[in-house]
């Protein structure tokens, strides 16, 4: 922005001052640079660690559909499918609820409750993921398997998505927990996008006789939709990389199935679950590292995309705000 202007008027008067500036600039520059470079060195190192597995498995790792550790069959496909399934459930359940929360906080709530309520919602993000997992094992999984799953089976059994009576450790349970976990992220960014909508939008709709609901739908949601979209993508990024809560509730079976009540596994939970036994075996370790490489690429794509969308969505809003 105005950064170049900030220092424009500055002219060093003495060599000492210049030396201090040079040293300080060099120090912060080197730290920032080396932290940045280190990440990519580590990425290269991780790819190197995954190399034995890449060499032995080749493209089969990306195309095979059945995982059988006993026969030496390793493939990332069932893990990717499981990751997409659980993240899909999380988005389907979590995004509408988050948008509802954002609407309530930015459009409807009285001013005094907005701050404390936002804080309480954000506490959901502060709860460690392993505690979600513990709660999932002893509370959510039994509740779902006794009270919710039978209803889903009888109502929606014909879709093949809900069948049988698994013990509650399923893709559905993991997806529900992920939905809860992405709510604070998606809600707070959506709320920001909605609060950045200029008031003239609301005033215009209200002056035409629109109700609060119509104002929100026409004036606010249309304006903030790309911000909300970015928030959802960011939520997807969180759901894809979430490890412990999923590893504890998904049941860990690398089999592809349509049935959401079957156990499954994700890339992250496969790594966490096998880290104990498999690191003694160099080949299995490199398989786990190759899964991590795939997860890295997926997460990088999602997060870069989300940042680009959000950056674009917030920019015109900011310049619009300055004009008011």
């Amino acid at each position: 922005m105005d950064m170049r202007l900030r220092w424009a008027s500055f002219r060093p008067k003495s060599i000492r001052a210049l030396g201090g500036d040079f040293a300080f600039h060099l120090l912060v520059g080197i730290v920032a640079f080396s932290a940045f470079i280190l990440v990519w060195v580590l990425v290269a190192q991780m790819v190197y660690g995954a190399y034995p597995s890449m060499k032995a498995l080749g493209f089969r790792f990306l195309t095979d559909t059945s995982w059988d550790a006993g026969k030496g069959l390793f493939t990332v496909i069932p893990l990717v499918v499981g990751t997409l399934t659980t993240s899909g459930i999380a988005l389907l359940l979590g995004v509408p609820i988050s948008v509802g929360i954002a609407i309530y906080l930015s459009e409807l709530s009285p001013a005094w409750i907005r701050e404390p309520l936002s804080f309480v919602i954000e506490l959901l993000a502060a709860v460690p993921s392993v505690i979600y997992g513990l709660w999932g094992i002893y509370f959510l999984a039994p509740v779902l398997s006794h009270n919710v799953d039978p209803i889903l089976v009888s109502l929606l059994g014909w879709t093949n998505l809900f069948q049988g009576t698994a013990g509650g450790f399923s893709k559905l349970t993991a997806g529900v927990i992920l939905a809860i976990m992405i709510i604070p992220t998606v809600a707070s960014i959506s709320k920001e996008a909605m609060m950045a909508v200029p008031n003239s939008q609301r005033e215009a709709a209200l002056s035409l006789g629109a109700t609060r609901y119509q104002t929100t739908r026409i004036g606010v949601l249309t304006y903030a939709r790309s911000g909300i979209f970015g928030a959802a993508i960011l939520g997807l990024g969180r759901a894809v990389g979430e490890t412990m809560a999923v590893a504890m509730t998904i049941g860990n079976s690398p089999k592809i199935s349509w049935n959401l009540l079957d156990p499954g596994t994700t890339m992250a939970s496969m790594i966490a679950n096998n880290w104990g036994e498999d690191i003694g075996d160099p080949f299995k370790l490199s398989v786990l590292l190759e899964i991590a490489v795939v997860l890295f690429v997926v997460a990088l794509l999602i997060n870069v995309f989300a940042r680009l969308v959000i950056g674009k969505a917030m920019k015109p809003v900011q310049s619009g705000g300055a004009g008011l």
Partner: protein
Amino acid sequence: MSLEIRTYKRRKLVNLLASAAALSCVVVALIPLASILVEVIVKGYGALSWGFISNPIIPGGGIGNAILGTLQLAFYASLIGLPVGILTGIYVSEFGDNGFGRTIRFFNDVFANFPSIVIGLLAYSLFITYFGFSILLGAIALAMIMIPVVANTTEEALRMVPNSLREASLALGVPRWKTVLKVMITNGKSGMVTGALLAIARITGETAPILVTARYSYYWALSPSDPTASLPVAIWFNALDQSATAQQQAWGAALVLIILVLSFNIVVRLLTRRNRFNNNNRMVKKSWLRKSKQSA
């Protein structure tokens, strides 16, 4: 009834239903939070005792070494992560108006939300040869999680400092580096402290990156090069164990961990509340300045 009245009533009804739906979304989100807190407090409370907190996992069936491990990991991670994060934030905010600065800023945003298990494995893949499974390795992984978060909050805090202060300092002939250290940091301090505390709170609850780096141990960790138990990993290893002691350990550790993390968050909240007020005042002043400049 005329048509207008009927559509008016319908619109009012829809409005009411939509508002109720939005409010119920909030309630739906609060139920799991309440349920988690109740479960952890009820089941964890029974486990807590002095022996439980002070004994290592074996012998004695406590979680003492896990508590100490979590504190040690947070300490060493902050030792590495806070300075690097703060200096990176200063670079981006004060010297970063170039391609490289913008690149770093973009990747800070990207890595601030990155899957923590991947970051743990990145740290593992290079540093395992030097440190083995140890507190140090875990601290490096956690520091890597902290750096983008701290850099972002530092940058934001420095951006909040009004430009007029910087200009005033430079006008007095204070060199740039001294301006940053004495003027910018002094004024942005509270925001930076908040960001640092939030980052520490976040790494305290991280599980996956510790699992792949600091591993687990039944005994006290005697030096930073030993593997250690930590509260999150203790929960993970005991959660699915059928024995009563193990489950008690899991719930007790969960209670201690949640108290630690939530109290951190609440303290940060109380701090930011005061800041926001100050910052708002500053912003008002700033925009007033800008306007007077424009009119002049």
